[in-house]
């Protein structure tokens, strides 16, 4: 646990920011990669190591940051949905229904999709919980966040190492 405390800090921050609308609007898909960068920098500071970072270590920190972000992101999202009986799916639902309604689709397909959306929305509004919604949140978070964390970790190490190389040639 202590070994990955920087990933924990970065992942927790990313998990919180993922549910804050303003932060989400500005940072968009860059929240988890930026969290990985911060986690790697924190790790460097904590270990007082100014040498180049091995890429394997960067990948590991990025991946674990992504896993923490997925864990906290899912927890906060499900908790807030449970308390408020509302979330961004409810907001986006009418827009989504309009898109499908305007499409030249088979009426049977349209009806099935509408009933699926309505079922999820009514479960959330009545109980604050939907099995399908919770399942999709957890699966999506645990696939996408570690992947973006891993990519962020790789690119961050490349940037940090390039800076170290530049600094050592300058002095």
């Amino acid at each position, binding site marked *: 646990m202590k070994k990955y405390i920087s990933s924990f800090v970065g992942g927790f921050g990313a998990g919180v920011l993922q549910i804050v*609308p303003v932060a989400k609007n500005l940072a968009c898909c860059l929240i988890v990669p930026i969290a990985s960068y911060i986690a790697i920098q924190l790790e460097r500071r904590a270990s007082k190591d100014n040498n180049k970072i091995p890429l394997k270590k960067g990948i590991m920190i990025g991946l674990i940051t992504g896993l923490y972000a997925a864990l906290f992101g899912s927890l906060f999202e499900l908790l807030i949905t449970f308390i408020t009986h509302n979330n961004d799916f409810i907001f986006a639902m009418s827009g*989504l229904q309009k*898109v499908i309604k305007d499409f030249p689709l088979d009426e049977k397909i349209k009806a099935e999709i509408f009933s699926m959306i309505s079922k999820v929305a009514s479960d959330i509004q009545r109980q604050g919980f939907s099995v399908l919604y919770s399942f999709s949140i957890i699966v999506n978070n645990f696939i996408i966040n570690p992947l973006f964390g891993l990519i962020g970790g790789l690119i961050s*190490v490349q940037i940090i190492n390039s800076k170290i190389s530049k600094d050592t040639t300058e002095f």
Partner: protein
Amino acid sequence: MSYKSIQLLILFLLLILNIGNFILFFIQFDNRLAYLILPIDKSFSLICHQQSSKLFNYFTFHTLLCSRCTGIYLGGITALISILIGIKLKISKLELFYTSIFLMLSDIIFYTSGIYNYSQWIALITGFLFGIAALNLLMISLQNLIKEINSENF
């Protein structure tokens, strides 16, 4: 796993992402794709804010990701295809990366402070540049990672 197979895996992932983003266009060819709108839209909500005013509009359709994210993933796939067919950038990848971040941040600051109105084309182009730069940097990192692993093994 060789560098070539990693490149192809990333190409496959980017291809799926881009097709998912333009799924509203593809539905006209196969109506059953409409069942995928809900799960794809929900998955994309993790990597993009998906504000309806910032989605990229084309013909009578719109993307599921915002204009900037659409640019990032289109830039990523363009850069990867360029690398695969042997087109190499003559400029420093890191400088391109910093420039693209600077342009993207400038656009965000300018439209949020009201200097100009949000433009889906500016967002798309700045995102596209960032996508190219980030993908190039990712590929260099992967090459270095493979070198690092090989040097440990021998």
